[in-house]
Protein backbone atom coordinates (compact mmCIF):
# COMPACT_ATOMS: atom_id res chain seq x y z
CA UNK A 1 0.00 0.00 0.00
CA UNK A 2 1.53 3.33 -1.04
CA UNK A 3 0.10 6.58 0.13
CA UNK A 4 0.94 10.06 1.21
CA UNK A 5 -0.42 12.73 3.48
CA UNK A 6 -0.96 11.57 7.02
CA UNK A 7 -3.51 14.39 7.55
CA UNK A 8 -5.94 12.76 5.12
CA UNK A 9 -5.84 9.46 7.00
CA UNK A 10 -6.01 11.09 10.41
CA UNK A 11 -9.04 13.08 9.31
CA UNK A 12 -10.80 9.98 8.03
CA UNK A 13 -9.95 8.21 11.26
CA UNK A 14 -11.18 11.06 13.45
CA UNK A 15 -14.38 11.36 11.42
CA UNK A 16 -15.02 7.65 11.81
CA UNK A 17 -14.45 7.83 15.58
CA UNK A 18 -16.64 10.94 15.92
CA UNK A 19 -19.37 9.21 13.96
CA UNK A 20 -19.17 6.05 16.08
CA UNK A 21 -19.08 8.03 19.29
CA UNK A 22 -22.46 9.40 18.19
CA UNK A 23 -21.32 13.04 18.17
CA UNK A 24 -22.86 13.64 14.75
CA UNK A 25 -26.22 12.47 16.06
CA UNK A 26 -25.87 14.69 19.12
CA UNK A 27 -25.24 17.67 16.86
CA UNK A 28 -28.15 16.78 14.57
CA UNK A 29 -30.43 16.19 17.57
CA UNK A 30 -29.43 19.44 19.18
CA UNK A 31 -29.96 21.35 15.94
CA UNK A 32 -33.42 19.78 15.56
CA UNK A 33 -34.31 20.60 19.16
CA UNK A 34 -33.26 24.22 18.86
CA UNK A 35 -34.97 24.61 15.47
CA UNK A 36 -38.21 23.40 17.06
CA UNK A 37 -37.63 25.65 20.06
CA UNK A 38 -37.12 28.76 17.94
CA UNK A 39 -39.93 28.05 15.48
CA UNK A 40 -42.59 26.66 17.77
CA UNK A 41 -41.83 27.16 21.45
CA UNK A 42 -40.47 30.68 21.72
CA UNK A 43 -42.93 33.49 20.94
CA UNK A 44 -42.18 35.92 18.16
CA UNK A 45 -43.10 38.78 20.44
CA UNK A 46 -43.30 39.03 24.17
CA UNK A 47 -46.54 40.14 25.75
CA UNK A 48 -46.14 43.38 27.64
CA UNK A 49 -46.31 42.04 31.11
CA UNK A 50 -43.85 44.53 32.52
CA UNK A 51 -44.31 47.94 34.06
CA UNK A 52 -45.11 51.25 32.49
CA UNK A 53 -42.93 54.06 33.82
CA UNK A 54 -44.25 57.59 33.60
CA UNK A 55 -42.47 60.94 33.62
CA UNK A 56 -44.45 64.12 33.94
CA UNK A 57 -42.68 67.03 32.22
CA UNK A 58 -45.86 69.02 31.52
CA UNK A 59 -46.16 72.63 32.51
CA UNK A 60 -47.58 72.67 36.02
CA UNK A 61 -47.26 68.92 36.52
CA UNK A 62 -50.74 68.22 35.14
CA UNK A 63 -50.33 64.48 34.82
CA UNK A 64 -48.67 63.47 38.13
CA UNK A 65 -51.81 63.75 40.33
CA UNK A 66 -53.86 61.76 37.84
CA UNK A 67 -51.20 59.07 37.65
CA UNK A 68 -50.96 58.84 41.41
CA UNK A 69 -54.71 58.52 41.67
CA UNK A 70 -54.62 55.75 39.09
CA UNK A 71 -52.10 53.81 41.21
CA UNK A 72 -48.90 54.70 39.31
CA UNK A 73 -47.23 56.30 42.33
CA UNK A 74 -44.35 53.80 42.38
CA UNK A 75 -43.82 54.07 38.64
CA UNK A 76 -43.51 57.83 38.48
CA UNK A 77 -40.00 58.99 37.71
CA UNK A 78 -38.54 62.46 37.94
CA UNK A 79 -36.63 62.80 34.69
CA UNK A 80 -36.10 61.31 31.27
CA UNK A 81 -32.66 60.20 32.38
CA UNK A 82 -34.12 58.15 35.22
CA UNK A 83 -36.58 56.68 32.77
CA UNK A 84 -33.81 55.57 30.40
CA UNK A 85 -31.98 53.91 33.27
CA UNK A 86 -35.11 52.14 34.47
CA UNK A 87 -35.87 50.84 30.98
CA UNK A 88 -32.31 49.61 30.60
CA UNK A 89 -32.64 47.63 33.83
CA UNK A 90 -36.12 46.29 33.11
CA UNK A 91 -36.12 44.99 29.53
CA UNK A 92 -39.83 44.25 29.53
CA UNK A 93 -40.97 47.72 30.59
CA UNK A 94 -42.11 50.65 28.49
CA UNK A 95 -42.05 54.33 29.42
CA UNK A 96 -44.18 57.38 28.69
CA UNK A 97 -42.99 60.99 28.95
CA UNK A 98 -45.77 63.55 29.10
CA UNK A 99 -44.91 67.05 27.84
CA UNK A 100 -46.58 70.28 26.86
CA UNK A 101 -49.78 71.73 28.31
CA UNK A 102 -53.51 71.76 27.68
CA UNK A 103 -52.97 73.84 24.57
CA UNK A 104 -50.36 71.45 23.17
CA UNK A 105 -50.73 68.04 24.85
CA UNK A 106 -47.87 65.72 23.90
CA UNK A 107 -46.46 62.34 24.85
CA UNK A 108 -43.49 60.19 23.86
CA UNK A 109 -43.75 56.43 24.30
CA UNK A 110 -40.42 54.66 24.73
CA UNK A 111 -40.47 50.98 23.82
CA UNK A 112 -37.99 48.15 23.82
CA UNK A 113 -38.96 46.99 20.36
CA UNK A 114 -40.45 43.56 20.85
CA UNK A 115 -43.85 44.64 22.16
CA UNK A 116 -46.90 43.48 20.21
CA UNK A 117 -48.52 46.28 18.19
CA UNK A 118 -51.87 45.55 19.81
CA UNK A 119 -50.39 46.27 23.21
CA UNK A 120 -48.86 49.50 21.93
CA UNK A 121 -52.19 50.69 20.53
CA UNK A 122 -53.72 50.05 23.96
CA UNK A 123 -50.96 52.13 25.54
CA UNK A 124 -51.59 55.00 23.10
CA UNK A 125 -55.28 54.95 24.04
CA UNK A 126 -54.33 55.07 27.72
CA UNK A 127 -52.07 58.09 27.11
CA UNK A 128 -54.89 59.98 25.38
CA UNK A 129 -57.27 59.03 28.18
CA UNK A 130 -54.88 60.35 30.86
CA UNK A 131 -54.52 63.67 29.01
CA UNK A 132 -58.28 63.93 28.69
CA UNK A 133 -58.63 63.43 32.42
CA UNK A 134 -56.31 66.39 32.92
CA UNK A 135 -58.96 68.83 31.64
CA UNK A 136 -60.26 70.48 28.47
CA UNK A 137 -57.69 70.08 25.78
CA UNK A 138 -57.51 72.72 23.07
CA UNK A 139 -55.84 70.38 20.60
CA UNK A 140 -55.79 66.62 20.20
CA UNK A 141 -52.92 64.83 21.94
CA UNK A 142 -49.87 64.45 19.75
CA UNK A 143 -47.74 61.45 20.53
CA UNK A 144 -45.00 59.39 19.00
CA UNK A 145 -43.21 56.14 19.71
CA UNK A 146 -39.45 55.89 20.11
CA UNK A 147 -37.30 52.84 20.26
CA UNK A 148 -34.78 52.80 23.08
CA UNK A 149 -31.99 51.87 20.69
CA UNK A 150 -32.90 53.81 17.58
CA UNK A 151 -30.44 52.04 15.26
CA UNK A 152 -31.75 48.62 16.03
CA UNK A 153 -35.18 47.42 15.35
CA UNK A 154 -35.25 44.55 17.81
CA UNK A 155 -35.45 41.16 16.10
CA UNK A 156 -38.41 38.93 16.72
CA UNK A 157 -37.97 37.51 20.19
CA UNK A 158 -37.57 33.91 19.06
CA UNK A 159 -35.04 34.67 16.30
CA UNK A 160 -33.00 36.72 18.73
CA UNK A 161 -32.01 33.43 20.33
CA UNK A 162 -30.36 32.06 17.19
CA UNK A 163 -26.87 33.59 17.72
CA UNK A 164 -26.71 32.24 21.26
CA UNK A 165 -28.00 28.79 20.32
CA UNK A 166 -25.47 28.68 17.51
CA UNK A 167 -22.65 29.54 19.87
CA UNK A 168 -23.79 26.84 22.27
CA UNK A 169 -22.71 24.00 20.00
CA UNK A 170 -19.90 25.68 18.09
CA UNK A 171 -18.09 27.10 21.10
CA UNK A 172 -19.10 24.93 24.01
CA UNK A 173 -20.17 21.47 22.95
CA UNK A 174 -17.75 21.18 20.01
CA UNK A 175 -14.80 21.96 22.24
CA UNK A 176 -15.98 19.36 24.71
CA UNK A 177 -16.17 16.76 21.91
CA UNK A 178 -12.54 17.42 20.99
CA UNK A 179 -11.42 16.99 24.60
CA UNK A 180 -13.39 13.76 24.80
CA UNK A 181 -11.55 12.48 21.71
CA UNK A 182 -8.18 13.25 23.28
CA UNK A 183 -9.09 11.50 26.53
CA UNK A 184 -10.43 8.53 24.58
CA UNK A 185 -7.07 8.20 22.81
CA UNK A 186 -5.26 8.45 26.14
CA UNK A 187 -7.49 5.85 27.74
CA UNK A 188 -7.26 3.39 24.84
CA UNK A 189 -3.54 4.04 24.57
CA UNK A 190 -3.90 4.66 20.84
CA UNK A 191 -2.06 7.95 21.33
CA UNK A 192 1.03 5.89 22.26
CA UNK A 193 0.95 4.27 18.84
CA UNK A 194 0.63 7.68 17.22
CA UNK A 195 3.67 8.91 19.15
CA UNK A 196 5.86 6.32 17.44
CA UNK A 197 4.49 6.96 13.97
CA UNK A 198 6.12 9.24 11.40
CA UNK A 199 3.13 11.63 11.52
CA UNK A 200 3.81 14.91 13.28
CA UNK A 201 1.94 17.08 15.72
CA UNK A 202 0.51 19.44 13.11
CA UNK A 203 -1.51 16.83 11.21
CA UNK A 204 -2.86 15.61 14.57
CA UNK A 205 -3.98 19.11 15.61
CA UNK A 206 -5.32 20.08 12.20
CA UNK A 207 -7.30 16.87 11.88
CA UNK A 208 -9.07 17.49 15.19
CA UNK A 209 -9.72 21.10 14.20
CA UNK A 210 -11.13 20.12 10.82
CA UNK A 211 -13.50 17.59 12.35
CA UNK A 212 -14.84 20.13 14.81
CA UNK A 213 -15.14 22.83 12.14
CA UNK A 214 -17.15 20.43 9.96
CA UNK A 215 -19.47 19.67 12.89
CA UNK A 216 -19.80 23.41 13.53
CA UNK A 217 -20.67 24.08 9.90
CA UNK A 218 -23.23 21.28 9.81
CA UNK A 219 -24.89 22.56 12.96
CA UNK A 220 -24.65 26.21 11.96
CA UNK A 221 -26.10 25.57 8.51
CA UNK A 222 -29.08 23.60 9.82
CA UNK A 223 -29.90 26.00 12.65
CA UNK A 224 -29.55 29.09 10.48
CA UNK A 225 -31.46 27.83 7.46
CA UNK A 226 -34.33 26.33 9.42
CA UNK A 227 -34.81 29.37 11.64
CA UNK A 228 -33.75 32.41 9.64
CA UNK A 229 -34.05 30.89 6.18
CA UNK A 230 -31.67 30.95 3.24
CA UNK A 231 -30.43 34.49 3.62
CA UNK A 232 -27.47 36.16 1.93
CA UNK A 233 -25.71 36.47 5.29
CA UNK A 234 -25.42 32.66 5.54
CA UNK A 235 -21.83 32.36 4.15
CA UNK A 236 -20.60 35.13 6.44
CA UNK A 237 -22.30 33.48 9.44
CA UNK A 238 -20.78 30.11 8.57
CA UNK A 239 -17.36 31.74 8.26
CA UNK A 240 -17.75 33.05 11.81
CA UNK A 241 -18.91 29.63 13.00
CA UNK A 242 -15.98 27.91 11.29
CA UNK A 243 -13.43 30.31 12.77
CA UNK A 244 -14.95 29.97 16.23
CA UNK A 245 -14.95 26.16 15.90
CA UNK A 246 -11.31 26.39 14.82
CA UNK A 247 -10.41 28.62 17.77
CA UNK A 248 -12.25 26.53 20.33
CA UNK A 249 -10.62 23.30 19.13
CA UNK A 250 -7.18 24.85 19.49
CA UNK A 251 -8.19 26.13 22.92
CA UNK A 252 -9.58 22.77 23.97
CA UNK A 253 -6.44 20.93 22.84
CA UNK A 254 -4.23 23.43 24.64
CA UNK A 255 -6.01 22.84 27.94
CA UNK A 256 -7.08 19.20 27.85
CA UNK A 257 -3.56 17.77 27.41
CA UNK A 258 -2.80 18.79 30.99
CA UNK A 259 -5.38 16.36 32.36
CA UNK A 260 -5.36 12.60 32.57
CA UNK A 261 -9.04 11.83 32.19
CA UNK A 262 -12.35 13.33 31.25
CA UNK A 263 -13.54 13.10 34.85
CA UNK A 264 -10.63 15.34 35.94
CA UNK A 265 -11.35 17.71 33.10
CA UNK A 266 -15.05 18.09 33.85
CA UNK A 267 -14.42 20.61 36.62
CA UNK A 268 -12.28 22.72 34.33
CA UNK A 269 -14.96 22.46 31.66
CA UNK A 270 -17.47 23.93 34.10
CA UNK A 271 -15.26 26.97 34.65
CA UNK A 272 -14.56 27.35 30.92
CA UNK A 273 -18.24 27.12 30.06
CA UNK A 274 -19.08 29.75 32.65
CA UNK A 275 -16.55 32.16 31.15
CA UNK A 276 -17.72 31.38 27.61
CA UNK A 277 -21.31 32.06 28.68
CA UNK A 278 -20.57 35.62 29.79
CA UNK A 279 -21.04 37.18 26.33
CA UNK A 280 -24.30 35.23 25.99
CA UNK A 281 -25.59 36.76 29.21
CA UNK A 282 -24.42 40.12 27.96
CA UNK A 283 -26.37 39.52 24.76
CA UNK A 284 -29.63 39.29 26.68
CA UNK A 285 -28.72 41.78 29.40
CA UNK A 286 -26.62 44.51 27.79
CA UNK A 287 -26.07 46.17 31.15
CA UNK A 288 -23.99 43.08 32.07
CA UNK A 289 -20.93 43.82 30.01
CA UNK A 290 -17.24 44.48 30.28
CA UNK A 291 -14.66 45.58 27.74
CA UNK A 292 -12.74 42.32 27.93
CA UNK A 293 -15.82 40.29 26.93
CA UNK A 294 -14.87 40.97 23.33
CA UNK A 295 -11.89 38.63 23.74
CA UNK A 296 -13.97 35.72 24.99
CA UNK A 297 -14.30 33.35 21.99
CA UNK A 298 -18.10 33.32 22.05
CA UNK A 299 -18.35 37.10 21.77
CA UNK A 300 -17.40 37.52 18.11
CA UNK A 301 -19.76 34.71 17.14
CA UNK A 302 -22.80 35.90 19.09
CA UNK A 303 -22.46 39.59 18.39
CA UNK A 304 -21.05 39.13 14.90
CA UNK A 305 -24.08 37.12 13.85
CA UNK A 306 -26.42 39.61 15.48
CA UNK A 307 -24.79 42.39 13.54
CA UNK A 308 -24.99 40.43 10.30
CA UNK A 309 -28.59 39.39 10.65
CA UNK A 310 -30.15 42.13 12.77
CA UNK A 311 -27.92 45.01 11.76
CA UNK A 312 -27.49 47.88 14.19
CA UNK A 313 -25.51 49.76 11.60
CA UNK A 314 -22.11 49.39 13.23
CA UNK A 315 -19.76 49.83 10.32
CA UNK A 316 -16.89 47.37 10.21
CA UNK A 317 -18.07 45.42 13.25
CA UNK A 318 -18.13 42.06 11.42
CA UNK A 319 -14.64 42.61 10.05
CA UNK A 320 -13.46 43.59 13.52
CA UNK A 321 -14.85 40.33 14.92
CA UNK A 322 -13.11 38.34 12.17
CA UNK A 323 -9.81 40.01 12.96
CA UNK A 324 -10.18 39.32 16.68
CA UNK A 325 -10.90 35.67 15.94
CA UNK A 326 -7.98 35.43 13.52
CA UNK A 327 -5.59 36.92 16.07
CA UNK A 328 -6.84 34.58 18.79
CA UNK A 329 -6.52 31.61 16.43
CA UNK A 330 -2.88 32.43 15.71
CA UNK A 331 -2.05 32.64 19.41
CA UNK A 332 -3.96 29.51 20.43
CA UNK A 333 -2.71 27.47 17.49
CA UNK A 334 0.86 28.19 18.57
CA UNK A 335 -0.01 27.31 22.17
CA UNK A 336 -1.77 24.11 21.09
CA UNK A 337 1.30 23.09 19.09
CA UNK A 338 3.55 23.58 22.11
CA UNK A 339 1.35 21.86 24.69
CA UNK A 340 0.36 18.94 22.44
CA UNK A 341 3.99 18.35 21.50
CA UNK A 342 5.26 18.55 25.07
CA UNK A 343 2.44 16.92 26.98
CA UNK A 344 0.60 14.61 24.60
CA UNK A 345 3.31 13.39 22.25
CA UNK A 346 5.61 12.26 25.05
CA UNK A 347 5.33 9.48 27.55
CA UNK A 348 4.50 10.01 31.19
CA UNK A 349 1.61 12.46 30.75
Amino acid at each position, binding site marked *: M*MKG*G*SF*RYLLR*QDMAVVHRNGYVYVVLGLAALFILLVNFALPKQLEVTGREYLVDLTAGQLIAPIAREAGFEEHMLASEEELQQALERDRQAVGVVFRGNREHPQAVIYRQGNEPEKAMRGLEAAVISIWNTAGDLEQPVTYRQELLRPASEKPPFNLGFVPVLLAFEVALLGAFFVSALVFQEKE*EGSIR*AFRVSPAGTWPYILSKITVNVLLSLLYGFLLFVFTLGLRPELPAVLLLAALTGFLMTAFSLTISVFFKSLSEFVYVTAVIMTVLSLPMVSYFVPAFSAAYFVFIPTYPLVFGIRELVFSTGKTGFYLQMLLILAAEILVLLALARITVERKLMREGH
Partner: protein
Amino acid sequence: MIRVEDLTFHYPRAAAPAVREASFEIGRGRIFGFLGPSGAGKSTVQNIMIGLLPAQKGKVLYDNKKIVELGKSFFNRVGVSFEHPNVYEKLTGLENLKYYGGLFSVPTINPERLLEMVGLADAGRKWAGQYSKGMKQRLVFARAIMNRPEILFLDEPTSGLDPTTARKILNIIIAEKNRGATIFLTTHNMLVADELCDTVAFINEGQIVNQDSPRNLKLQYGQKAVKVEYRNNGKVETVLLFPEKPEDRDQLNHLMEQRKVETMHSQEATLEQIFIKLTGRGLA
Protein backbone atom coordinates in the same frame (compact mmCIF):
# COMPACT_ATOMS: atom_id res chain seq x y z
CA MET B 1 23.81 -0.85 14.53
CA ILE B 2 22.07 0.34 17.69
CA ARG B 3 24.31 1.47 20.53
CA VAL B 4 23.01 2.25 24.00
CA GLU B 5 25.51 3.86 26.34
CA ASP B 6 25.22 4.44 30.08
CA LEU B 7 21.49 5.01 29.99
CA THR B 8 20.09 6.27 33.28
CA PHE B 9 16.55 7.39 34.04
CA HIS B 10 15.00 8.47 37.31
CA TYR B 11 11.23 9.10 37.42
CA PRO B 12 10.22 12.14 39.44
CA ARG B 13 9.43 11.28 43.08
CA ALA B 14 10.69 7.68 42.67
CA ALA B 15 13.00 6.43 45.40
CA ALA B 16 15.51 4.84 43.02
CA PRO B 17 16.39 5.19 39.34
CA ALA B 18 14.32 3.03 37.01
CA VAL B 19 17.38 2.42 34.83
CA ARG B 20 21.03 2.70 35.86
CA GLU B 21 23.89 2.94 33.40
CA ALA B 22 22.50 0.44 30.93
CA SER B 23 24.80 -0.22 27.97
CA PHE B 24 24.50 -2.67 25.09
CA GLU B 25 24.79 -2.97 21.33
CA ILE B 26 22.52 -4.61 18.79
CA GLY B 27 23.98 -5.59 15.46
CA ARG B 28 22.01 -5.20 12.25
CA GLY B 29 19.64 -8.10 11.64
CA ARG B 30 20.04 -9.51 15.16
CA ILE B 31 17.45 -10.23 17.82
CA PHE B 32 18.32 -8.74 21.18
CA GLY B 33 16.30 -10.07 24.12
CA PHE B 34 15.78 -7.84 27.10
CA LEU B 35 14.78 -10.07 29.97
CA GLY B 36 13.60 -9.19 33.40
CA PRO B 37 10.65 -9.27 35.76
CA SER B 38 7.91 -6.62 35.83
CA GLY B 39 9.22 -3.27 37.02
CA ALA B 40 12.84 -4.12 36.23
CA GLY B 41 13.16 -1.17 33.82
CA LYS B 42 12.60 -2.93 30.49
CA SER B 43 9.86 -0.64 29.24
CA THR B 44 11.69 2.48 30.41
CA VAL B 45 14.71 1.49 28.31
CA GLN B 46 12.47 0.80 25.33
CA ASN B 47 10.65 4.13 25.77
CA ILE B 48 13.96 5.99 25.81
CA MET B 49 15.12 4.06 22.75
CA ILE B 50 12.03 5.06 20.76
CA GLY B 51 12.17 8.66 21.96
CA LEU B 52 9.10 8.67 24.18
CA LEU B 53 11.22 9.45 27.22
CA PRO B 54 14.28 11.66 27.20
CA ALA B 55 17.58 10.13 28.26
CA GLN B 56 18.57 11.92 31.45
CA LYS B 57 22.05 10.47 31.20
CA GLY B 58 23.70 8.41 28.51
CA LYS B 59 22.63 8.11 24.89
CA VAL B 60 21.00 5.93 22.27
CA LEU B 61 22.60 5.93 18.85
CA TYR B 62 21.24 4.53 15.61
CA ASP B 63 24.19 4.25 13.21
CA ASN B 64 25.90 6.86 15.38
CA LYS B 65 22.99 9.28 15.26
CA LYS B 66 20.73 10.32 18.12
CA ILE B 67 17.00 9.87 17.63
CA VAL B 68 16.39 13.63 17.80
CA GLU B 69 18.75 14.08 14.87
CA LEU B 70 16.82 11.52 12.84
CA GLY B 71 13.50 13.36 13.08
CA LYS B 72 9.97 12.01 12.76
CA SER B 73 10.74 10.26 9.47
CA PHE B 74 12.87 7.83 11.50
CA PHE B 75 9.62 6.12 12.46
CA ASN B 76 9.12 5.10 8.84
CA ARG B 77 11.89 2.60 9.60
CA VAL B 78 10.60 1.51 13.00
CA GLY B 79 7.82 -0.77 14.23
CA VAL B 80 6.66 -0.89 17.84
CA SER B 81 4.43 -3.52 19.40
CA PHE B 82 3.27 -2.55 22.87
CA GLU B 83 2.68 -4.91 25.76
CA HIS B 84 -0.72 -3.41 26.52
CA PRO B 85 -2.77 -3.49 23.32
CA ASN B 86 -3.55 0.07 22.29
CA VAL B 87 -5.99 0.28 19.44
CA TYR B 88 -8.96 2.44 18.48
CA GLU B 89 -11.72 0.40 20.05
CA LYS B 90 -14.47 1.91 17.91
CA LEU B 91 -12.68 1.21 14.67
CA THR B 92 -12.57 -2.22 13.09
CA GLY B 93 -9.32 -4.16 13.02
CA LEU B 94 -9.06 -3.41 9.31
CA GLU B 95 -9.65 0.32 9.85
CA ASN B 96 -7.07 0.42 12.63
CA LEU B 97 -4.45 -0.91 10.23
CA LYS B 98 -5.64 1.09 7.22
CA TYR B 99 -5.56 4.47 8.99
CA TYR B 100 -2.30 3.74 10.80
CA GLY B 101 -0.73 2.68 7.53
CA GLY B 102 -1.67 6.07 6.10
CA LEU B 103 0.71 7.76 8.52
CA PHE B 104 3.77 6.28 6.82
CA SER B 105 5.50 7.75 3.81
CA VAL B 106 6.94 4.38 2.85
CA PRO B 107 5.08 1.46 1.26
CA THR B 108 3.13 -0.65 3.75
CA ILE B 109 1.74 -4.16 3.66
CA ASN B 110 -1.90 -4.49 2.65
CA PRO B 111 -3.98 -4.48 5.87
CA GLU B 112 -6.04 -7.49 4.79
CA ARG B 113 -2.88 -9.47 4.15
CA LEU B 114 -1.58 -8.48 7.59
CA LEU B 115 -4.80 -9.62 9.28
CA GLU B 116 -4.48 -12.93 7.49
CA MET B 117 -0.87 -13.31 8.64
CA VAL B 118 -1.81 -12.95 12.31
CA GLY B 119 -4.98 -15.02 12.03
CA LEU B 120 -7.50 -12.16 12.24
CA ALA B 121 -8.86 -12.27 8.70
CA ASP B 122 -12.33 -13.29 9.86
CA ALA B 123 -12.45 -10.58 12.53
CA GLY B 124 -11.20 -7.73 10.35
CA ARG B 125 -14.57 -6.03 10.14
CA LYS B 126 -15.39 -6.26 13.83
CA TRP B 127 -14.77 -3.32 16.13
CA ALA B 128 -11.43 -3.78 17.87
CA GLY B 129 -13.19 -3.11 21.17
CA GLN B 130 -14.93 -6.46 20.74
CA TYR B 131 -11.63 -8.33 20.37
CA SER B 132 -10.18 -10.52 23.13
CA LYS B 133 -6.86 -9.44 24.65
CA GLY B 134 -5.00 -11.94 22.51
CA MET B 135 -6.69 -10.68 19.33
CA LYS B 136 -5.81 -7.10 20.22
CA GLN B 137 -2.24 -8.22 20.88
CA ARG B 138 -2.08 -9.70 17.39
CA LEU B 139 -3.57 -6.56 15.88
CA VAL B 140 -0.92 -4.44 17.59
CA PHE B 141 1.76 -6.85 16.36
CA ALA B 142 0.42 -6.62 12.80
CA ARG B 143 0.49 -2.82 13.05
CA ALA B 144 4.14 -2.96 14.16
CA ILE B 145 5.29 -4.88 11.09
CA MET B 146 3.12 -3.17 8.48
CA ASN B 147 5.86 -0.80 7.28
CA ARG B 148 8.43 -3.62 6.96
CA PRO B 149 10.53 -1.94 9.66
CA GLU B 150 14.29 -2.02 9.78
CA ILE B 151 14.09 -1.90 13.57
CA LEU B 152 11.34 -3.71 15.43
CA PHE B 153 10.54 -3.21 19.10
CA LEU B 154 8.43 -6.04 20.48
CA ASP B 155 7.16 -5.91 24.04
CA GLU B 156 5.85 -9.29 25.20
CA PRO B 157 4.57 -10.18 21.72
CA THR B 158 3.19 -13.59 22.70
CA SER B 159 1.64 -12.56 26.00
CA GLY B 160 -1.88 -13.92 26.36
CA LEU B 161 -1.72 -16.02 23.19
CA ASP B 162 -2.57 -19.71 22.94
CA PRO B 163 0.37 -21.95 21.90
CA THR B 164 -0.72 -22.30 18.27
CA THR B 165 -1.16 -18.56 17.78
CA ALA B 166 2.02 -17.82 19.71
CA ARG B 167 3.86 -20.16 17.32
CA LYS B 168 2.46 -18.25 14.37
CA ILE B 169 3.72 -14.97 15.82
CA LEU B 170 7.16 -16.45 16.63
CA ASN B 171 7.44 -17.64 13.05
CA ILE B 172 6.67 -14.14 11.79
CA ILE B 173 9.36 -12.74 14.10
CA ILE B 174 11.85 -15.22 12.69
CA ALA B 175 10.77 -14.25 9.17
CA GLU B 176 11.26 -10.57 10.05
CA LYS B 177 14.77 -11.35 11.26
CA ASN B 178 15.50 -13.30 8.07
CA ARG B 179 14.26 -10.29 6.09
CA GLY B 180 16.97 -8.27 7.83
CA ALA B 181 15.12 -6.52 10.62
CA THR B 182 16.92 -5.70 13.85
CA ILE B 183 14.68 -6.74 16.72
CA PHE B 184 14.59 -5.54 20.31
CA LEU B 185 12.51 -8.08 22.18
CA THR B 186 11.32 -7.33 25.68
CA THR B 187 9.99 -10.36 27.49
CA HIS B 188 9.92 -12.35 30.67
CA ASN B 189 9.27 -15.55 28.72
CA MET B 190 12.64 -17.31 28.78
CA LEU B 191 11.60 -20.01 26.32
CA VAL B 192 10.74 -17.41 23.71
CA ALA B 193 14.00 -15.58 24.39
CA ASP B 194 15.97 -18.80 24.22
CA GLU B 195 14.47 -19.73 20.88
CA LEU B 196 14.64 -16.35 19.17
CA CYS B 197 17.45 -14.26 20.56
CA ASP B 198 21.01 -13.94 19.36
CA THR B 199 21.86 -12.05 22.51
CA VAL B 200 20.01 -11.65 25.77
CA ALA B 201 20.50 -9.11 28.52
CA PHE B 202 19.21 -9.68 32.02
CA ILE B 203 17.90 -6.57 33.70
CA ASN B 204 17.07 -6.36 37.37
CA GLU B 205 16.21 -3.27 39.42
CA GLY B 206 17.27 -1.04 36.54
CA GLN B 207 20.69 -2.62 36.03
CA ILE B 208 21.87 -5.00 33.36
CA VAL B 209 23.40 -7.86 35.32
CA ASN B 210 24.69 -9.86 32.38
CA GLN B 211 24.40 -10.15 28.61
CA ASP B 212 25.57 -12.71 26.11
CA SER B 213 24.20 -15.30 23.71
CA PRO B 214 21.86 -17.85 25.34
CA ARG B 215 24.39 -20.60 24.51
CA ASN B 216 27.30 -18.83 26.17
CA LEU B 217 25.22 -18.03 29.24
CA LYS B 218 24.23 -21.66 29.57
CA LEU B 219 27.80 -22.77 29.14
CA GLN B 220 28.97 -20.24 31.65
CA TYR B 221 26.37 -20.83 34.31
CA GLY B 222 24.93 -24.25 33.54
CA GLN B 223 26.22 -27.67 34.61
CA LYS B 224 27.04 -30.40 32.07
CA ALA B 225 24.77 -33.19 33.22
CA VAL B 226 22.94 -36.16 31.75
CA LYS B 227 19.60 -37.35 32.99
CA VAL B 228 19.30 -41.14 32.55
CA GLU B 229 16.23 -43.33 32.95
CA TYR B 230 17.10 -47.04 33.36
CA ARG B 231 15.40 -50.27 34.34
CA ASN B 232 16.42 -51.86 37.63
CA ASN B 233 14.68 -55.05 38.82
CA GLY B 234 11.71 -54.29 36.57
CA LYS B 235 11.30 -50.73 37.86
CA VAL B 236 12.25 -47.52 35.99
CA GLU B 237 14.67 -45.35 37.95
CA THR B 238 16.20 -41.93 37.19
CA VAL B 239 19.65 -40.63 37.91
CA LEU B 240 21.43 -37.32 37.14
CA LEU B 241 25.04 -37.92 36.16
CA PHE B 242 27.86 -35.40 35.63
CA PRO B 243 30.22 -36.89 32.98
CA GLU B 244 33.06 -34.69 34.11
CA LYS B 245 33.19 -36.66 37.40
CA PRO B 246 35.02 -40.03 36.93
CA GLU B 247 32.61 -41.99 39.13
CA ASP B 248 29.56 -40.67 37.25
CA ARG B 249 31.27 -41.38 33.93
CA ASP B 250 31.89 -44.98 35.10
CA GLN B 251 28.27 -45.38 36.19
CA LEU B 252 27.03 -44.10 32.84
CA ASN B 253 29.32 -46.54 31.01
CA HIS B 254 28.11 -49.35 33.22
CA LEU B 255 24.44 -48.60 32.57
CA MET B 256 25.05 -48.49 28.84
CA GLU B 257 27.00 -51.72 28.84
CA GLN B 258 24.24 -53.45 30.82
CA ARG B 259 21.74 -52.17 28.21
CA LYS B 260 19.59 -50.93 31.05
CA VAL B 261 19.21 -47.36 29.70
CA GLU B 262 15.70 -46.49 28.52
CA THR B 263 16.07 -42.71 27.93
CA MET B 264 18.95 -40.27 28.17
CA HIS B 265 18.83 -36.43 27.99
CA SER B 266 21.56 -33.86 28.30
CA GLN B 267 20.75 -31.38 31.07
CA GLU B 268 21.56 -27.70 30.72
CA ALA B 269 20.56 -24.68 32.76
CA THR B 270 17.55 -22.73 31.52
CA LEU B 271 17.77 -18.97 31.12
CA GLU B 272 15.34 -18.68 34.00
CA GLN B 273 17.65 -20.68 36.27
CA ILE B 274 20.55 -18.49 35.23
CA PHE B 275 18.53 -15.37 35.94
CA ILE B 276 17.70 -16.65 39.42
CA LYS B 277 21.32 -17.51 39.99
CA LEU B 278 22.38 -13.99 38.98
CA THR B 279 19.71 -11.96 40.71
CA GLY B 280 18.35 -14.17 43.45
CA ARG B 281 14.80 -13.68 42.16
CA GLY B 282 12.47 -15.19 39.61
CA LEU B 283 10.96 -13.61 36.51
CA ALA B 284 7.30 -13.68 37.46
